[in-house]
């Protein structure tokens, strides 16, 4: 009977039940969606790496120019064997990023992998595989086609379908702006997404396309298990020439995934914000459901229901709510997650590596997390009110004033809690100097401190408004007085909204500050009038190079006064691969680079002599400083380079090393150029020169030729794209807050229906009643804003100076604009007013007679 009473209560308030479920499921869904998006991208990358690496345990890796293929021949003809064990198995690989396209389809970035079918250890390209993919029964026939037909490639059947290609289709493969004809000779019909981003070709073909004739990207090694294997590895290491290293294959994959670590941590923190907001709202919804039934519970207690029984009922209800909410959140998260995958993988492609995500991965841990999160949140939210109501004497009706008095006392105590949390956040930031986790902990403490102080601020301001405005009008007094007098209802809702608004102010100030810092940095750094770059995916890929002949032709165009050259590559170091820019700068170019540490007068001469200048993110990540040295793997082995300066850079969150082009060529034996900056003679129009450059390159190499303004605009658009996800997550958190606000207002309206009915009975019109509710919700929105502004500013400081610094090493100047606050004002007001519409409509339509009778 007790359970029936409980169930019927829930079913009699479907709107309340639905809103509590929506709030909880949105919070859970956000976490699930982020998990799906990040896990799917990582899984796609891992699968693709596994497909390329196969069963390789180690990789032999060289510098930007790769490895001389003669090393492979040498190792095959004179195998490394410890005597007792089998020799090490080796597979040569040539890989690079290319663009695949045809007149019938949009360009798509893919990873070209050149393999030797006869040495297949990594990618499964045995003659049998080739035969199967090409639909040939005859292995030899397929192999002949692979080896002899120019431009032969295979790709995943799913990818081919997306690109509109069939076996036998001809299309083009773009490498650094140069197009090559290709033909699809087979399709990999595998359900796994491992091959989705891969384009397989013969190793010799890949060498030709990527401009690496005679060179290998790496040699995959499979080490036999046991001590013999270890011994063979030691022998192999001894036989490697200088500049060539041996690394664990799993470690290389991990290093690549680690690149996205800070990015995914930020996403997860944003999703946690949504759950935090929903926790508050669930607390509001559950505690209201308990308070609403205090009379019924009192009757049950008077009839003999024990405290334990009452406690059990309330907690069981919350548990059911939690499980159902989590279940719904799981489904909703899957839907949102599929959309988020597009945004996340686009950002990863923009910033880190090429990945094609074709299937959504939902880790089991995420499901468990969602269920526990939803269940735990609802249970924790219910515990306090459940203990309170179960512990009360079995009286028929706990007076409302007693409840509100408790809420007021709690609000007062929460002021202290808020101060402690804010101080705690400051202490955590000061004590932990590098920990990103501590940074996020401080951020959440700050947001919770906003939530904790909001009820007291709301009560204070509502009382003040009731006092001053109420002098003139009892209706105004009624409106504001009710807010202050119903703190148990209004406090939690406004706290949740305040937290969401504080987060919005913080995030928008951070994004705006970042945008302005980037704009300022681009303004300083991008000094050339025209930039010419070899196109293609991956910023540091060696295959991106301007053909020497084309470069000569371009520089012969009239109007070019001077030019800078750069080579962007990835070099090995004991700390893993590092992005390097080798520069030959003009005099203007030197002044363009802003040094955050180091004296320009000394740094640049040292730079010319062979010192390096590192970017702020790299200096932060590897804890580098002036006077220290950076060890890099050169063509002649490891070499220590003195650090002459640290420069500001926002282009690469993993950091960058600057070295002079002459020194680079000297140590890495690579004379390619990735990009050029052209400085025009006075009076020469950039558009005229660009037209000339395009004509000169036409038919030879499809270079990216852009004016200074264009390149800045492109950089800014990539920046905007990167923050789309942040905005999506932020709006989800705001959505949760708005739903919670509606839920709380409905609950509040239900409680006040009698009071409103009295005022209606003495002449307040339905529109007047609706306006009364809207005035109250608008006021609550404003209070949320008042509480959120200082906290939002502090949040912005933590986000820019702590989180961004610790995650990426960037130093961002705080940039405040009026728009950040007006947007927050709009959000607070719109959310509050929108949340008030339905309760206002219900109030206006409510039956006065019925509500008055319900005393």
């Amino acid at each position: 009977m007790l359970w029936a009473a409980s169930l019927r209560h829930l079913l009699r308030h479907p709107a309340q039940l639905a809103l509590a479920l929506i709030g909880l499921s949105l919070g859970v869904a956000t976490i699930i969606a982020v998990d799906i998006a990040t896990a799917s991208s990582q899984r796609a990358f891992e699968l693709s790496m596994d497909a390329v690496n196969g069963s390789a345990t180690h990789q032999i890796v060289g510098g930007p120019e790769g490895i001389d293929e003669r090393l492979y021949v040498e190792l095959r003809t004179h195998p490394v064997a410890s005597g007792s064990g089998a020799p090490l198995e080796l597979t040569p690989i040539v890989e690079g990023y290319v663009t695949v396209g045809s007149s019938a389809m949009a360009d798509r970035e893919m990873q070209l992998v050149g393999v030797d079918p006869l040495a297949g250890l990594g990618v499964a390209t045995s003659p049998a595989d080739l035969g199967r993919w090409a639909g040939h029964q005859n292995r030899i026939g397929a192999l002949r086609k692979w080896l002899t037909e120019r431009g032969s490639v295979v790709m995943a059947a799913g990818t081919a379908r997306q690109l509109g290609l069939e076996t036998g289709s001809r299309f083009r493969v773009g490498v650094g702006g140069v197009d090559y004809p290709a033909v699809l000779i087979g399709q990999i019909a595998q359900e796994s997404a491992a091959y989705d981003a891969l384009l397989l070709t013969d190793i010799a073909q890949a060498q030709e396309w990527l401009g690496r004739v005679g060179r290998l990207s790496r040699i995959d090694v499979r080490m036999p298990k046991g001590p013999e294997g270890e011994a063979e590895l030691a022998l192999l290491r001894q036989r490697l020439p200088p500049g060539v290293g041996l690394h664990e294959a799993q470690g290389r994959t991990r290093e690549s995934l680690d690149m996205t670590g800070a990015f995914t941590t930020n996403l997860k923190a944003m999703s946690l914000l949504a759950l935090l907001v929903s926790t508050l709202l669930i607390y509001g919804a559950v505690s209201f459901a308990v308070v609403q039934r205090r009379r019924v519970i009192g009757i049950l207690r008077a009839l003999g229901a024990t405290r334990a029984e009452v406690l059990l009922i309330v907690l069981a209800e919350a548990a059911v709510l939690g499980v159902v909410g989590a279940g719904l959140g799981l489904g909703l998260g899957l839907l949102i997650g599929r959309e988020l995958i597009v945004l996340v993988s686009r950002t990863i492609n923009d910033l880190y590596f090429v990945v094609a995500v074709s299937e959504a991965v939902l880790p089991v841990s995420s499901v468990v997390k969602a269920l526990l999160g939803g269940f735990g949140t609802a249970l924790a939210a219910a515990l306090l009110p459940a203990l309170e109501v179960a512990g009360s004497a079995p009286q028929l009706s706990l007076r409302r004033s007693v409840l509100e008095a408790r809420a007021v006392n709690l609000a007062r105590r929460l002021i202290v809690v808020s101060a402690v949390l804010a101080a705690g956040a400051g202490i955590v930031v000061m004590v932990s100097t590098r920990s990103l986790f501590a940074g996020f902990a401080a951020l959440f403490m700050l947001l919770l401190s906003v939530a904790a102080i909001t009820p007291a601020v709301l009560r204070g301001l509502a009382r003040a408004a009731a006092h001053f405005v109420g002098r003139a009008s009892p209706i105004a007094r009624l409106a504001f007085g009710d807010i202050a007098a119903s703190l148990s209802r209004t406090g939690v809702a406004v706290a949740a909204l305040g937290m969401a608004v504080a987060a919005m102010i913080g995030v928008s100030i951070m994004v705006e500050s970042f945008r302005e810092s980037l704009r300022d940095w681009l303004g300083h750094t991008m000094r050339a009038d025209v930039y010419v770059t070899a196109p293609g995916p991956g910023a540091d890929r060696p295959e991106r190079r301007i053909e020497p002949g084309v470069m000569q032709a371009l520089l012969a165009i009239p109007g070019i006064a001077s030019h800078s050259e750069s080579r962007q590559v990835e070099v090995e170091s004991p700390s893993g691969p590092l992005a390097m820019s080798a520069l030959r700068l003009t005099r203007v170019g030197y002044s363009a680079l802003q040094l955050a540490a180091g004296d320009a007068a000394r740094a640049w001469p040292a730079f010319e002599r062979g010192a390096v200048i590192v970017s702020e993110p790299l200096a932060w990540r590897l804890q580098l400083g002036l006077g220290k040295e950076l060890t890099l793997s050169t063509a002649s082995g490891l070499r220590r380079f003195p650090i002459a300066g640290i420069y500001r850079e926002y282009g690469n969150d993993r950091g960058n090393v600057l070295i002079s082009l002459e020194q680079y060529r000297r140590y890495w034996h690579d004379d390619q150029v990735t990009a050029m900056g052209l400085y025009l003679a006075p009076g020469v129009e950039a558009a005229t020169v660009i037209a000339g450059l395009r004509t000169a390159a036409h038919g030879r190499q499809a270079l990216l030729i852009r004016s200074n303004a264009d390149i800045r605009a492109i950089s800014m658009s990539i920046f905007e794209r990167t923050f789309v996800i942040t905005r999506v997550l932020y709006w989800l958190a705001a959505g949760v807050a708005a739903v919670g606000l509606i839920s709380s207002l409905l609950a509040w309206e239900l409680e006040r229906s009698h009071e409103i009915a009295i005022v209606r009975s003495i002449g307040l019109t339905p529109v007047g009643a609706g306006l009364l509710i809207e005035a109250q919700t608008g006021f609550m929105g404003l209070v949320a804003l008042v509480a959120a502004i200082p906290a939002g500013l502090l949040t912005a400081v933590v986000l820019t100076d702590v989180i961004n610094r610790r995650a990426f090493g960037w130093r961002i100047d705080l940039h405040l604009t009026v728009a950040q606050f007006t947007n927050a004002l709009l959000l607070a007001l719109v959310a509050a007013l929108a949340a008030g519409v339905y309760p206002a409509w219900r109030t206006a339509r409510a039956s006065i007679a019925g509500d008055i009778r319900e005393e």
Partner: protein
Amino acid sequence: MLILKQLCRSFHEGGRVHRVLDHADARIEKGAAVAVVGRSGSGKSTLLNVISGIDQADDGTVEYDGRDITALLEPARTLFRRQHVGFVYQFFNLIPTLDVEENVRLALELNGVRGAEARRRSAALLGEVGLGDRLHSAVDQLSGGEQQRVAIARALVHEPALVLADEPTGNLDEETARQVFPVLVSLTRERGATLLMVTHDSALAGSLDRVLELRDGRLKPVGG
């Protein structure tokens, strides 16, 4: 003159139709004080709600001074009630977040009387009901009798032509009821308003000008 013609109102309770007003008729002269008696659940409160426009009749009309209240739409009914009706309830129905004077002034403000004038009139009437020294007390600090006097002041402050009282002494002890009831009747009479009072107390009912009994959905005069 208040004229009720063939007034019908029924409620659906589960699958059953409960007809509380069944072609009820009555004519109440201006300035008269009339009691309505009847058993619990006979529809007395519904009758007051329909007359005030809080509830709507299924059929029939309520005319006040030649104006058909039942023909008005909701906003117009609210305006009618605001200007012409004062309501006194059994459970006082004061607004707990407003003080004594504000509860009374609220009715004036809804009628567009604001500022000093509204304060003066509220304070004056509260003085008449004996609460001149409790103007700014919180309503939940008052006794039941005091709360009902505040409710009477609120019902009369805007000088309505029709005062509807639904068991105004039903929540008071006998002695307090004997103190509050004359206040309601005398203040209503002084203002020339019509009083329609629902009560179970036959003694109080008998002290008014007329008594109507609501039985089987119809109004019948009691005692001649």
